[in-house]
C-alpha cells in the first residue's frame, strides 16, 4: 500500500477521550469521535450539553483538559505542535459571525491569507474574491460587515474560512443568530460545500438540512455521547430515550 492511500484511510479528525473542566464543573466527560475525510458530522444536544465546547476543542480554541485531538493522524493537542499552523488548515464559523468590523468584506477574507499563509496581497485578494464569489457575494467586496444582512455576514464568515483552503470546517450553530428568512441562504452554501466533499463538523438543530447533508449524527448530553450513527437512522429510529425526548422537543 502506498503512503498516499495510507493517509486516505486515516480519519480527518479524531477525538480521543476529551475531558474539559471549567473551574469545578466537568463539562466534557470523555468524548470520542471520528470524522472521515469528506464526511459531514453533526453534533446535537440541548444547551449545556457541551456540543460547542467539544467543537471548540477540535481546533484548540478551547484547550481540552484531557484527551487528544488528531488531525490526519497528527496529535495536535501535543504541546510541540504549532497550533496556529493547525488552525490555518481548519476553518471555523461562529454563531455570531465574528467578522472584523474595521475591515471591508474583502479584507476580512484576505486577512488570513496575507498574515498566516504569507501570500502577496494582490494574490490574496484574488483568492478572497473567488471565495466570496463561491458564497454569492461578489458584489459586496468593498462593503463593511455592518452594512450586510445577517445571512450575508455569515456567508462572508464561510468565505473567510474557505479562502484558506481548509481541510475541514467547524460550524458552531451557524444559523442560530439569523432571522428565519436568512437561514436558508446560509444552509444552501453549506450544502454545496458538503456536496463538494468538504469535511465538516456542524453544531446545528436544522433537521431538514442535517437529513440532506449530514452523514453522521452525534447526540451529546451532559458532556457525554448518548447516541451516534448515520443521520437518518438516529433521526428516524433513535435508540436512546434522551435522543427521542430531544427530537420531540425541537420538532
Amino acid at each position, binding site marked *: 500500500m502506498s503512503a498516499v492511500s495510507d493517509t486516505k484511510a486515516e480519519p480527518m479528525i479524531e477525538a480521543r477521550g476529551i475531558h474539559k473542566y471549567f473551574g469545578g464543573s466537568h463539562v466534557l466527560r470523555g468524548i470520542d469521535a471520528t470524522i472521515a475525510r469528506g464526511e459531514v458530522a453533526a453534533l446535537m444536544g440541548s444547551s449545556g450539553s457541551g456540543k460547542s465546547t467539544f467543537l*471548540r476543542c477540535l481546533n484548540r480554541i478551547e484547550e481540552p483538559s484531557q484527551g487528544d485531538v488528531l488531525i490526519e493522524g497528527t496529535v495536535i493537542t501535543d504541546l510541540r505542535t504549532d497550533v496556529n499552523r493547525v488552525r*490555518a488548515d481548519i476553518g471555523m464559523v461562529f454563531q*455570531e459571525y465574528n467578522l472584523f*468590523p474595521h475591515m471591508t468584506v474583502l479584507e476580512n477574507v484576505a486577512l488570513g491569507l496575507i498574515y*498566516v499563509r504569507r501570500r502577496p496581497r494582490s494574490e490574496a485578494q484574488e483568492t478572497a474574491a473567488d471565495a466570496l464569489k463561491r458564497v454569492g457575494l461578489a458584489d459586496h467586496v468593498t462593503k463593511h460587515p455592518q452594512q450586510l444582512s445577517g445571512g450575508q455576514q455569515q456567508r462572508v464568515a464561510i468565505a473567510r474560512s474557505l479562502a484558506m483552503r481548509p481541510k475541514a470546517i467547524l460550524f458552531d450553530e451557524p444559523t442560530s443568530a439569523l432571522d428565519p428568512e436568512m437561514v436558508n441562504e446560509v444552509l444552501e452554501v453549506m450544502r454545496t460545500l458538503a456536496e463538494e466533499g468538504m469535511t465538516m463538523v456542524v453544531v446545528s438543530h436544522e433537521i431538514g438540512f442535517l437529513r440532506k447533508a449530514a452523514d453522521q449524527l452525534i447526540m451529546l448530553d451532559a458532556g457525554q455521547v448518548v447516541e451516534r450513527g448515520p443521520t437518518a437512522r438516529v433521526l428516524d429510529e433513535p435508540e436512546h430515550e434522551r435522543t427521542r425526548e430531544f427530537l420531540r422537543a425541537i420538532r
Partner: protein
Amino acid sequence: MTDIRTTIDDWRNRGAHQPWFRRYEWLAIGLVGWIAAAVLFLPPFGKPTPLGAAGVILWYLTGFVLAGVMLTDREKPILLKRATSLSVIVLFFWLFYRYSGTRWDRVQEQFFNFSRMDGVWELYAQGLLVTLQLSIVAAVLSIIFGLTFGILRTLGNPVIDLFLGLHVDIFRALPLIVSMVLIFYALPFLGIRLPAFWAAVLALVLMNSAYQTEIFRAGIESIPRGQIDAARALGLGPGATMRFVILPQAFKIVIPPLTNNLVSLVKDTAVAYVITVPELLTTAQQAVTWKRTPTPLVLSMFVYLATLIPLIHLTRRLERRLDAWNVR
C-alpha cells in the same frame, strides 16, 4: 367685550388645578415683593458689609426660587420662561459688578495695557515653544508607555499586574505638582539631578501613562471575545491578533478618553512653572515683574484658550466622525 372675559376666564381655569404658588396672582405678588425688597434693602454700590452681603445673597436666592417656580411649570408660556432665565443670569453678573468691590476703572489700564508690551511678544513665543515641546514629548512618551502597560495588563500575569497596578494607583493618586516638586527638589539629595525640562517630562509621563494604561486596558478588554476567537481560528498568533484585530478596534474606542487625557496633559504643562521650566506661564510671570503690569499674565490666559479650545473641538469632531463609522 365677552371675548376678553372669556380669555381671562380661560386663563384662570387653565391654572385651576395647580397649587396656589403657581398661579399668576401669587407669582405677581411675589415678584412685586421681591422688587420692593431690592429697592428698600439692597446695599449701595461697592463692597458691602458682611450682613449686607448675606442680604444680597438671600435676596438673589429668593429670586432664584421664584424663577424655579416659573421654569418648572409646563403650562407657563415659553417666552415668559426665556425672559425669566435670562434675567436670573443677567442679575448674577449685575450683582457681581455692583458688590464685588472690583475697581472697574482699572481693568483697561492694568489688564489690557498694550503700551508696555515691547519685547514681551518674543518672550511669549519662546514660552509657547517650550510649552509645545513639553506637551509633545510628554504626550508621545505617555502614549508609548500607556499603550505598552495597557497591553501588558490584559495578559493577566499576576507579577506584571501587581507592578503596573501599583504604578496606576500611585500616580493617579499623587497630585502632579507633588511628584514634579519631589523629582526636581528632593531627588537631587540622592544624587539624581534632572534638568527642569526633563523633570517636568518625567512627572507628566508618570502620571499620564498611569491614566492611559487604564484607558488602553479598558479599550482592549471591550473588544468582544468572539473577535479574538475568530482571529485565532484563522491561525493568527497572539501578536498578530493584537495588531490586526484587537488594536485597530480598540483605538477607535479609546480615542475620546485618550484625547481628553491629552488635553489635560497640555493644560498640566503649566504646573512646570513651579520648577522653573521656562514655559508659557513662567515667561508671562517674568514679563509681569519686568514690565510691572499684569497684562502678560492675562494674555497668557488667552494663549492657553486659543490653543486648547480648538483642540477640544477637534476631538469632539473626531468623536462624531468615529460614531458615523459605526453603522451598527
